[in-house]
């Protein structure tokens, strides 16, 4: 079997990930905003007698800014021995996609162009002419409908990718410089020389001192004549060419709908945009509480009807008393997280998917930019926060779209401390809300917003200032597709079934064993100054909190199991409403789960991770104790 390495590169939001899923059948997240993919994905396709290794890369606008994300993509392109570089272009914005395609062509690698979103038919294309001009095959596809994907596979299989001989009409001075550099060192190709003159680190670093010095002189000389640096002029020439090519090969057949423009305008303009934003957020939470609640009831009844006492009966048959205890614990734990936690998580992800796919999020980013300045962030921090309401791990990873380290530290702290992940959100709504009243959900949410604001303000005044800016492309608004929304929901929740349930079973067995040996109380006792003393909770809740470090949705399951060990079947007999409030407070603030800490360690390093984690514990205990003390007085 031969292996073919295929790399999908392209500007953000052109549909690389959707195409990746079409090609490989492996689901990855696609959303209608730039910067969805921040990590490489790889999957294989067997096609006839070859194995294609397809790589989905994060989107980049160009290959010349020296930013971290572009460097990584550049290295992947140059060092991975790719057999095919597939530049994914957006057929509704050919000009700008062409500029990146030209840059990739200049690297001198086997390339082809995939003209995606062809189903939109906003332009008529002259594909043959385009192919002829840029010297690489151009394959129109629609990742959404699957149209043309077979042609793409066939083209990859038939090794149609070409090293392009297309040359941009660069300024005469630059052409002379390029020739001079190539003469100084014959191993330097045309494309490499261009990248060096653009000041791209990857290439400049490999150049000899002489070449580097000469290029600096050239840049001075060029700037004094043209009044702009070579990198600016190179881009100017590239856009010039791309514009002419786009004018030659495509004709507009359909205007962008002006209705979409009007709606977009309304979402951005503060006078209408702020009410819309508030409405969207309120609707999201209302939906979460009501639909989640309905679903929870449904699932609980269903579970009881199907499973009933089957598990505990089965336990008694095979293991006597201990067996029955274990199985009853498992039964309670599973029904607790299936019934109370998972429904909310699923509903949340459906809502998030709708928001992501509509293209609304980037508009909220624009609207919130000035507000977020107050806590040292920019509007673009809004997207990781929204993603964080689902799961903090991808949220931490998606902070990569922010370049300033200072802002990433602030944002990660805010996410860990004050953005409840869907499991925490489910605990707040499904447990605290249900047993202590829904008004407490509101109280806790307000508390978290305040906490996030305060931690942002504090860090903003502590950390050294770094310049940073907001620049975000606003994708076209579109109607979310049910299929994609559900697919994403499943991708993001299947882990709960695959990991949380087995973990819960293991946890249950351990606890029942501890109880049967009579050591549970001894284990939880040393921490009772915290749980009982400060927080006023049953001593065993410490185990629920510890389980929550593994996975947040396990806490409540464990709590139910723990209640069972005390001979209590109704959770409301185990804790008072007041205790459920304190439990909800601590649950939504204390320690990020292991996976989040690992992600943070990778992104920010050990020091920040430890600092942030410790801070969350202290804050959680402090606020939990205050709630406990106050509630003791008033309730």
């Amino acid at each position: 079997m031969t292996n073919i390495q295929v790399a999908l590169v392209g500007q953000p939001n052109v549909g690389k990930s959707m195409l990746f899923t079409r090609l490989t059948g492996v689901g990855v997240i696609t959303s209608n905003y730039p910067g969805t993919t921040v990590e490489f994905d790889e999957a294989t396709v067997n096609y006839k007698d070859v194995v294609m290794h397809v790589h989905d890369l994060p989107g980049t606008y160009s290959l010349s800014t020296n930013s971290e994300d572009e460097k990584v993509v550049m290295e992947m392109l140059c060092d991975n021995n790719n057999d095919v570089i597939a530049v994914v272009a957006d057929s509704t914005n050919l000009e700008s996609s062409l500029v990146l395609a030209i840059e990739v062509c200049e690297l001198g690698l086997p390339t082809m162009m995939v003209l995606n979103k062809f189903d939109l038919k906003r332009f008529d294309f002259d594909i043959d002419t385009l192919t002829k001009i840029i010297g690489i095959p151009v394959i129109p596809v629609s990742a959404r409908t699957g149209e043309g994907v077979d042609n793409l596979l066939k083209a990859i299989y038939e090794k149609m990718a070409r090293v392009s001989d297309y040359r941009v009409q660069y300024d005469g001075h630059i052409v002379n410089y390029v020739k001079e550099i190539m003469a100084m060192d014959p191993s330097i190709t045309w494309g490499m020389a261009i990248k060096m003159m653009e000041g791209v680190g990857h290439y400049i670093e490999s150049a000899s001192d002489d070449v580097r010095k000469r290029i600096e002189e050239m840049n001075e000389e060029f700037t004094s004549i043209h009044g702009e640096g070579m990198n600016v002029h190179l881009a100017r020439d590239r856009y010039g060419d791309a514009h002419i090519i786009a004018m030659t090969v495509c004709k507009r057949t359909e205007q962008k709908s002006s209705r979409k423009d009007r709606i977009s305008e309304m979402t951005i303009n503060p006078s209408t945009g702020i009410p819309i934003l508030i409405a969207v957020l309120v609707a999201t939470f209302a939906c979460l509480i009501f639909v989640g609640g309905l679903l929870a009831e449904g699932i609980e009844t269903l579970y009881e009807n199907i499973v009933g006492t089957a598990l505990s009966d089965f336990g008694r048959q095979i293991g006597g008393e201990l067996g029955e205890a274990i199985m009853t614990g498992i039964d309670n734990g599973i029904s607790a997280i299936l019934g109370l936690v998972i429904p909310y998580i699923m509903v949340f992800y459906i809502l998030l998917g709708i928001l992501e796919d509509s293209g609304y999020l980037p508009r909220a980013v624009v609207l919130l930019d000035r507000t977020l300045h107050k806590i040292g962030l920019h509007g673009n921090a809004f997207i990781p926060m929204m993603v964080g309401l689902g799961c903090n791990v991808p949220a931490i990873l998606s902070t990569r779209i922010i370049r300033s380290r200072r802002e990433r530290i602030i944002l990660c702290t805010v996410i860990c401390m004050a953005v409840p992940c869907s499991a925490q959100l489910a605990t707040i709504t499904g447990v605290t809300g249900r047993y202590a009243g829904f008004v407490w959900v509101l109280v806790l949410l307000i508390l978290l917003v305040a906490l996030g604001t305060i931690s942002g303000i504090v860090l903003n005044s502590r950390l050294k200032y770094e310049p940073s800016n907001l620049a975000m492309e606003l994708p076209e608004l579109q109607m979310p597709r049910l299929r994609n929304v559900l697919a994403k929901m499943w991708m993001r929740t299947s882990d709960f079934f695959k990991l949380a349930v087995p973990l819960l079973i293991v946890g249950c067995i351990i606890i029942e064993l501890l109880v049967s040996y009579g050591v549970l109380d001894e284990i939880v006792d040393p921490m009772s100054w915290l749980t009982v003393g400060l927080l006023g909770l049953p001593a065993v809740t410490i185990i629920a909190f510890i389980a929550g470090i593994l996975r947040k949705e396990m806490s409540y399951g464990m709590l139910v199991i723990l209640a069972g060990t005390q001979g209590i079947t109704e959770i409301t007999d185990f804790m008072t409403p007041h205790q459920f409030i304190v439990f909800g407070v601590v649950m939504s603030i204390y320690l990020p789960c292991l996976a989040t800490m690992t992600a943070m360690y990778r992104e920010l390093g050990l020091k920040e991770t430890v600092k942030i984690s410790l801070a969350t514990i202290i804050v959680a205990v402090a606020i939990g104790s205050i709630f406990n003390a106050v509630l003791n007085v008033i309730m």
Partner: protein
Amino acid sequence: MRNDNREDYLINILRLTDGTGTVRTTELASYMQVTPASVTEMLKILSKEGLVNYQRYRGVSLTEEGVLKARELRRKHHIMERFLTDVLDIDHEQAHDQACAVEHSISEETADKMCRMIGTKIDADCTTCKNPCNDGTVTIVKCIAVSKMRQGDKGKISHLSSGESTMVRKLISMGFVPGRDIQLTTSVSDKGARIIKIGEATIAIDKDMASAIFVNLE
């Protein structure tokens, strides 16, 4: 003569920048029809005298003192020009050229007296000028920062100017490249983000970034 030359630079920088913006040396050179090298040389002198802020490659702007001086000159220019056209009935083009020559040598007092004789108050802004000098032989392209564009304004990017090279690189990569046409569709608020149509794309940038992009308005 040297003095005249210096003052010509000041007044022309004022014309191109409106007193607040930045103009590139190459633009100034082509506007004044002199070589970039001589512009550079003069700017160094003016910069030493504290009349302009000049940074290589980024361009030049007037200092506060420079603005005052340039506006004083422009006032004299306007008065002289109006005197020639209104009182002596000389045609505008000639009046402009001669005013350019004389503006350097008349005293404040002379100017005031001429002003009184014409009978209208004439100041340094072009508003009182019956026939502003940019109607003359040279066409002034008004170059402003995107942050100063109003909703609906269209223009062509003339240059990027910022102290931060990473910002310039970022702007270029997102398509803010000299020569491209852009339109400001929305300004979220005075200090807020700007929404810009460029090619088929719609991009939001904050005010800092918008202040680094200069356009020639349509």
